[in-house]
């Protein structure tokens, strides 16, 4: 700072840097005097009011979070052929739209590009497609009606998709995995057992492994799905099945099958053999912990 400073100079020297001399006369931001009315300062007046709206939203949001824990199903199993795939709700309309004859199969390109890609690209480029000066929606009939038709379509497709999912669940007698998991966890806790962690349950030991019923099961190919040691593979484990089903229920399941996976065995096995297997399986109980 050896030299003398000129008070009218735009640049002042501070050490070895140059910092522009501040002129506070023109930092006032543009106001909204163009819009007549009661405008107010963003900070703090308006931001405080906005924060109040934010707090109301936050409270409602936290009530939802506490009332409805985030769902979690069973660990991903690529061999699970009976699982009904479902995307998150905001993708349902796309998922449903690509199921119709002219949007799927040979026409999938039409569905993906024409009916999904094109509307999104037109939405992206809306300002360049709707170039008129008019802003009010009722004076822009083409843009507004296209948007309203799209909204109706999206709502309808989402609803159809969800409805069909509920129908599929009902027809296949399936409980969504995250609900089943929750129910099982609650049951276990009620019994005083530790909460089961899916896929990490202790597999119960086999009871009376030298019982002739096991030989019968091997011959009847039960082990193809339920595992060579009944530990479970594509089908569920049968060790400890006596805790879940009693003998009559086991007979009914073997005779008539269950769901998509379990075939009926009434034609391949005699009633005595089914009875033999069911009797043995009903003794398969995990030791009480």
């Amino acid at each position: 700072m050896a030299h003398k400073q000129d008070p009218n100079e735009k640049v002042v020297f501070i050490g070895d840097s140059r910092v522009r001399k501040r002129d506070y006369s023109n930092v006032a931001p543009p106001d909204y005097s163009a819009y007549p009315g009661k405008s107010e300062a963003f900070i703090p007046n308006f931001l405080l009011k906005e924060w109040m709206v934010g707090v109301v939203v936050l409270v409602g949001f936290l009530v939802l979070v506490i009332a409805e824990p985030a769902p979690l199903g069973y660990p991903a199993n690529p061999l699970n052929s009976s699982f009904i795939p479902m995307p998150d709700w905001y993708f349902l309309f796309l998922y449903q739209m690509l199921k119709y004859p002219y949007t799927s199969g040979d026409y999938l390109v039409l569905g993906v590009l024409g009916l999904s890609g094109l509307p999104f690209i037109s939405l992206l480029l809306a300002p360049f497609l709707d170039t008129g000066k008019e802003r009010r929606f009722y004076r822009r009939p083409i843009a507004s009606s296209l948007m309203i038709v799209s909204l109706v379509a999206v709502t309808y497709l989402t609803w159809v998709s969800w409805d069909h999912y509920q129908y599929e669940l009902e027809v296949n007698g399936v409980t969504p995995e995250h609900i089943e998991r929750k129910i099982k966890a609650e049951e276990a806790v009620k019994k005083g057992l530790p909460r089961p962690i899916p896929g990490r349950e202790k597999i119960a030991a086999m009871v009376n492994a030298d019982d002739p019923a096991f030989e019968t099961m091997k011959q009847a190919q039960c082990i193809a799905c339920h595992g060579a040691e009944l530990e479970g593979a594509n089908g569920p484990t049968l060790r400890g099945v006596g805790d879940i089903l009693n003998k009559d229920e086991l007979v009914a399941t073997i005779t008539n099958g269950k769901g998509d996976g379990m075939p009926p065995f009434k034609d391949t096995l005699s009633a005595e053999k089914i009875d033999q297997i069911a009797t043995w399986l009903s003794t398969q109980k995990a030791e009480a912990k």
Partner: protein
Amino acid sequence: MFKNMYNWIDERLDITPMWRDIADHEVPEHVNPAHHFSAFVYCFGGLTFFITVIQILSGMFLTMYYVPDIINAYYSVDYLQHQVAFGAIVRGMHHWGASLVIVMMFLHTLRVFFTGSYKAPREMNWVVGMLIFFVMLGLGFTGYLLPWDDKAYYATKVGLEIAGAVPFLGEYIKELANGGTIVGAQTLTRFFAIHVFFLPGVLLALLAGHFFMIRKQGISGPL
């Protein structure tokens, strides 16, 4: 003391004009619900940002426990949900916030559309806003896989099959996202990286642009 600290920084960095620009602008009457109740439709943009901040914060806490590999991912989420103090709340906020941010953004988009606010001179801001919308959908899609349960696995499988149907590029997009030919270990780590680093980075850049343009152009006038 704070004034002295402020002055000390201001002398060196000249931050007053920046601060003035953020703090001192006026909010016009037609977007203020205190004057016209129907102006509540102008809240959705701010609420989208609010929920986005919640998503970023809760997501940062989730990564402290989440493990992005196919053996441990599910069990780390299970542990987070049931063992970690407030884990269920933080995961719940991230799970439900993901839906809420889509809802808020959707309403904000509709407000801008039906008030014609995307018209000149605000075309660029609409385009940036739509890009934010797509990034958010991408965040929703990639985040859905991370708990690695059946629902996540099969939704991703179906989603990538749809992406694979895009002509010419589809197979490449699918393989790039899959990290191979199947939904597996590579897919999970890739989706994790995209969900936690790539897309949030893009999102923050786009948000900065979105807000910069709003400050530069001001909010659109009354109808």
